[in-house]
């Protein structure tokens, strides 16, 4: 395909409106959260939450096998989300114990959730025929390894509802959340209910992780929760500008990667991750050059 033959942006929008709309929702939601994730070093917690979804998938598979819920429905998504939220709150509770470090707490919940998910999913396949249900493991792929290119109108609604809830709640409690993120120990001494704020952030993180996994897959979810914030923090030390840059990086990465995948018939997830990685490398180089210029001007003075 030559450049002259390439479709215009409008043609791309018409070609894949749902993936672009769902991608925009994910980019906005995850980019805002990513600044918090990077500043508070919550990246590993995000990993723990995403892997704990395996446990939720196992529970929903078993319930589907028993005929309690239908496979692929809203109930299944709700169960996985609920499982991840409970896991996130469990990590906080375990972290509060004197003898358990946060890393150990995350590792504990991560492996336990995966073990529960594996056993229940396997058991569900054996149990399903006894209850007249089809024995399939479709839900593993559909929930954990979603692809943004096959998103439909329902996924767009899920993405934008999650985005409005996450960004709206962060904005509503923005000052308490910022104080907690900046200086948790002192915030508590100032009367900030740090336990409640932390729980809120963890729940919102779980919502973002599960939604992003469902719509775009686990790798892109992780990338969206780290790269926009990390890139923006390389370029700015002002709060408003950092948030705007993070949203810009996330949106450009998702939409740019999606357009590249449509143009060149490539997988969308890796394209998006590579666009964002490229922006991070560019920001790191700019930051390094700025540092050198600053050091030179200081020496000259």
């Amino acid at each position: 395909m030559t450049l002259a033959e390439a479709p215009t942006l409008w043609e791309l929008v018409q070609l894949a409106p749902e993936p672009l709309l769902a991608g925009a929702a994910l980019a906005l939601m995850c980019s805002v959260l990513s600044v918090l994730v990077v500043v508070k070093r919550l990246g590993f917690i995000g990993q723990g939450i995403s892997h704990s979804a395996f446990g939720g998938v196992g529970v929903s598979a078993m319930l589907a096998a028993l005929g309690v819920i239908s496979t692929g429905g809203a109930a299944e998504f709700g169960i996985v989300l609920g499982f991840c939220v409970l896991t996130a709150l469990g990590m906080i509770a375990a972290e509060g114990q004197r003898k358990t470090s946060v890393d150990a707490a995350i590792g504990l919940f991560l492996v336990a959730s995966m073990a529960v998910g594996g056993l229940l999913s396997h058991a569900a396949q054996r149990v399903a025929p006894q209850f007249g249900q089809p024995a399939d493991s479709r839900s593993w792929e559909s929930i954990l390894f979603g692809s943004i290119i096959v998103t439909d109108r329902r996924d767009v609604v899920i993405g934008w509802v999650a985005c409005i809830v996450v960004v709206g709640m962060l904005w509503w409690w923005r000052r308490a959340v910022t104080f907690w993120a900046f200086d948790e120990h002192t915030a508590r001494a100032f009367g900030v209910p740090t336990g409640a704020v932390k729980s809120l952030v963890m729940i919102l993180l779980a919502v973002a992780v599960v939604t992003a996994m469902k719509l775009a897959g686990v790798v892109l979810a992780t990338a969206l929760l780290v790269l926009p914030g990390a890139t923006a923090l390389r370029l700015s030390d002002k709060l408003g500008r950092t948030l705007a840059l993070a949203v810009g990086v996330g949106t450009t990465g998702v939409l740019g990667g999606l357009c590249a995948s449509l143009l060149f018939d490539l997988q969308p997830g890796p394209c998006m991750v590579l666009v964002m990685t490229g922006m991070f490398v560019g920001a790191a180089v700019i930051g390094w050059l700025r540092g050198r210029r600053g050091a030179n001007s200081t020496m000259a003075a």
Partner: protein
Amino acid sequence: MPTTFAVEFENVTYRYPGTEASVLEGVSLRVAEGERLGVLGPNGGGKSTLLKLAMGLLEVQSGVIRVEGESPSAARRRGVVGYVPQKPDAEMSAPISVREMVVLGASWRVKGLARVSGEVRAYCDRMLELTGAGSYADRAVGKLSGGQFQRAMIARALACRPRILVLDEPTVGIDAAGQSVFAELLARVHSELGLTMLVVSHDLRAIAAGSDRVACLARRLHLHGSPSGLTPAVLAELFSHDIAGIIGTGAVHVHAHAASECAAHGHAPPGGDSGSGVSELVGLAVSAPGAGTKDKPEGGT
């Protein structure tokens, strides 16, 4: 007219859960309104625990604590106490300016559509000027020196208009020249705002320079009175564990005795092996205003 007490400890004993030995034992002290109390003691002597109890960050197990006549946690929730932490656990990579940090201290309760009033912002600017942080108010916190960040933290504590200012080890990491500037700053804050101040430190200079009264704390209260009560004998007893760890118990008695003799005769203690620490420490007590006199401590347990 009866004295009104800002902070009262009555026979307070505290032991951390899961430990055998108590950190504080039978501590009783009172801080009058507008008074500056310096709490001096060795590392592990219970100073920070005393502060945490006064701020309601730890629940008192035995005894009574009142802050402005109410429980410490109730006083904390009302914003009665302004807190300057010992070692900031702040995330210095956070994209936040000094002014934003100070305004957060005063406005973290403001949520949703509400805006921080111009009057609050003006008061924050006034506190920035009072503490000398006004000249770098728009700088990112990650670009501040230790002393600059200390001033910003004091401005943040003052911004919520507390009646009691609590400072935990405020001179850690500040050199001798910086300490005298810092002492002047605290004196200026005290005279301008008329606050009750509670300063905890293991640094004798910091305590002697800016306290109306001192409390010497090493699990128990060894002295609660005027700074003139900081005699070499009191200091040697207070820091006996620290000193014994460096030079051995026998040497402590020799040096403390030598310094006491010097104090009695009005000259400096022998400096032959002042590197040992105790002669320097006790010598400082001798040179402190009024120290070495026969003043009787006013209380203690």
